[in-house]
């Protein structure tokens, strides 16, 4: 009955349905783009953060307090339940390198003094060698360099393994000293962990760095957890080891959660705006159905006279509204997804006109928007259709109720 009645008013039904289609298209387009954006960001962040690696820093990161952590601190941290490895680091900035044999130059933004074996246990998958390998016996002058140090320009190679490299290190603002290292290996593109970009880093043994800087301490401790779920408990216990406010623990999962919640809010905000379109469509349904009830007053009178209950009439009109909603939803979902893909493509094309920006997080020279693929989850699709249905029924309720309440005698008299 409801279906036949809609078919009879094909043009009007199409226009009403179109309203719902537009609403659902907008919702799906924005929500699936938002979801795609979120996943892209998450992937980029996951590349930048090992979720099971905490960074412990002294509270004076910004105030420039020197090396803080003792070897005892490292040992205490490594005893905490859930800690797999605790690796101390000395971090120094900006060094110049000179290849004694080829006379080429290069620069590194960061010099890290690490225990190679421990440090490679923390990032076994990230720090892969392009040339050479992790030396089994580590001499005091062993050097490993990052991708950008090895390749100051894409086509240039700074040094090969076993070559001797002179490193100019700033011991103070004015005092520079040269040290000679032997290159054991170079690592491929690795990106950044937290705020250290490994591609711009050179690695020297912790002991060598300590001798150079005359200290027995460490600037940071990288803590690898046996599982990311230990993040909170380990963080708490580490803080308990030190006087209040003196250390900071960078917890990637907590940071990720914050970013996720911001992205969630953005997605909800976009979807809410799109929902307004659907509400307008709902008003359209209400309008059309009110007209339809007036036009069909006599028909309703006939139905009630021959024994249709009010509920039957109500159901009939609500079914019509629901059909419009479902049809609109079914058309709108694929259309919205298609639109999201078109939008994503256009955004890419448009932004490709500019110089590709360098991603802050990964340090790679990838196109930041290249990877935004809209994502349509089944939940989103079903949710959108259900939303269209609910809106249609809610807005169809008033006219349907009006139809159901018609007095049969008056309705029959209606011309």
């Amino acid at each position, binding site marked *: 009955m409801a279906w036949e009645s809609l078919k009879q008013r094909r043009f009007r039904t199409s226009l009403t349905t179109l309203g719902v289609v537009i609403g659902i298209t907008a919702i799906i387009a924005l929500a699936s783009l938002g979801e795609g954006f979120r996943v892209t960001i998450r992937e980029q962040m996951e590349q930048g953060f090992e979720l099971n690696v905490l960074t412990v820093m002294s509270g004076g990161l910004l105030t420039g307090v020197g090396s803080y952590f003792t070897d005892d601190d490292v040992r205490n941290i490594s005893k905490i339940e859930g800690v797999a490895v605790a690796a101390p680091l000395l971090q120094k900035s900006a060094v110049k390198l000179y290849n004694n044999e080829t006379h080429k130059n290069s620069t590194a933004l960061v010099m890290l003094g690490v225990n190679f074996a421990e440090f490679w246990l923390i990032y076994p998958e990230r720090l892969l060698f392009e040339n050479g390998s992790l030396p089994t016996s580590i001499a005091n002058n062993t050097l490993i360099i990052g991708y950008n140090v090895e390749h100051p320009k894409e086509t240039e190679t700074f040094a090969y393994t076993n070559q001797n490299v002179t490193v100019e290190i700033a011991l103070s603002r004015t005092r520079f000293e040269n040290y000679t290292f032997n290159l054991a290996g170079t690592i491929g593109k690795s990106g950044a962990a937290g705020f250290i970009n490994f591609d711009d880093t050179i690695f020297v043994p912790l002991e060598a760095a300590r001798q150079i800087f005359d200290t027995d301490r460490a600037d940071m401790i990288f803590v690898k957890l046996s599982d990311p779920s230990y993040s909170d408990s380990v963080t708490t216990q580490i803080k308990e080891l030190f006087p209040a406010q003196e250390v900071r623990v960078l917890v990637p999962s907590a940071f990720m959660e914050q970013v996720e919640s911001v992205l969630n809010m953005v997605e909800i905000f976009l979807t809410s705006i799109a929902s307004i379109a659907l509400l307008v469509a709902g008003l359209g349904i209400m309008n059309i159905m009110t007209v339809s009830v007036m036009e069909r007053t*006599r028909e309703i*009178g006939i139905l009630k006279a021959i024994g249709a209950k009010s509920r039957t009439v109500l159901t009939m009109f609500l079914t019509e509204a629901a059909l419009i909603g479902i049809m609109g939803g079914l058309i709108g979902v694929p259309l919205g997804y298609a639109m999201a893909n078109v939008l994503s493509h256009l955004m890419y094309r448009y932004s490709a006109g500019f110089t590709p920006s360098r991603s802050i997080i990964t340090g790679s020279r990838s196109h930041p928007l290249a990877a935004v693929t809209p994502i349509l989850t089944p939940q989103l699709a079903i949710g959108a259709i259900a939303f269209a249905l609910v809106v249609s029924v809610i807005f169809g309720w008033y006219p349907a109720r009006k139809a159901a309440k018609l007095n049969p005698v008056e309705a029959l008299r209606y011309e």
Partner: protein
Amino acid sequence: MPLATILEAKGVKKTYTMGKVLVPALRDVSLRVEEGEFVAIFGPSGSGKSTLLHVLGGLDRPDEGDVFIDGIGLSTLNDNRLAEVRLRKIGFVFQFFNLLPRLTALRNVELPLTLADVSEREAVEKAKEVLKIVGLEERINHRPTELSGGEQQRVAIARALVNEPKIVLADEPTGNLDTATGLDITALMKRLNQEKRQTFVVVTHDENVAKTADRIFQLRDGLIRRAQKEDARL
């Protein structure tokens, strides 16, 4: 064999307000119709005939008094139960046929069965059967606009009969038809009355219809003036 009372009206009063004026449509109407009777309610326009039929059929409620259909007092029923009585116990035939214009003859006749939750297959079968009885088996897939007035009224009669009601209430069934077609329709109703013992109450100002009736109630100014027997001359 004692006759069962199918329809009884007791002291029915109904007043309309038109603007500020009170118009008494039914002043005090009591009547009784037995099973298998063909009864005419005869009167000039404005005598309250249609109002009486609406009240008798549970389409409208009286201000005072009560109507009993097959022993059920309509005043005690809520709107839903009243609809149920209209669906199962009463068949309506109207002056302007009141078919649904978008549906074929068959679908129009099926409608009361659909409302009564009869299965689609059974409904089609039953509707075809009744359409054959009223002589329209060839026209079942036509829409009302493709049918003549007489044919439309036959569809309406089929629709009224399809749920096997206790009583058929007809409101000026010949009022919108030419004389010859009106006689056909009257004859059809009489035949159904005689062959199927279908009870009919026909509101009319058509003498030809009234003549066919077993009994005639004369309605004037909202009051039953006379009840005449079958052989009475008008």
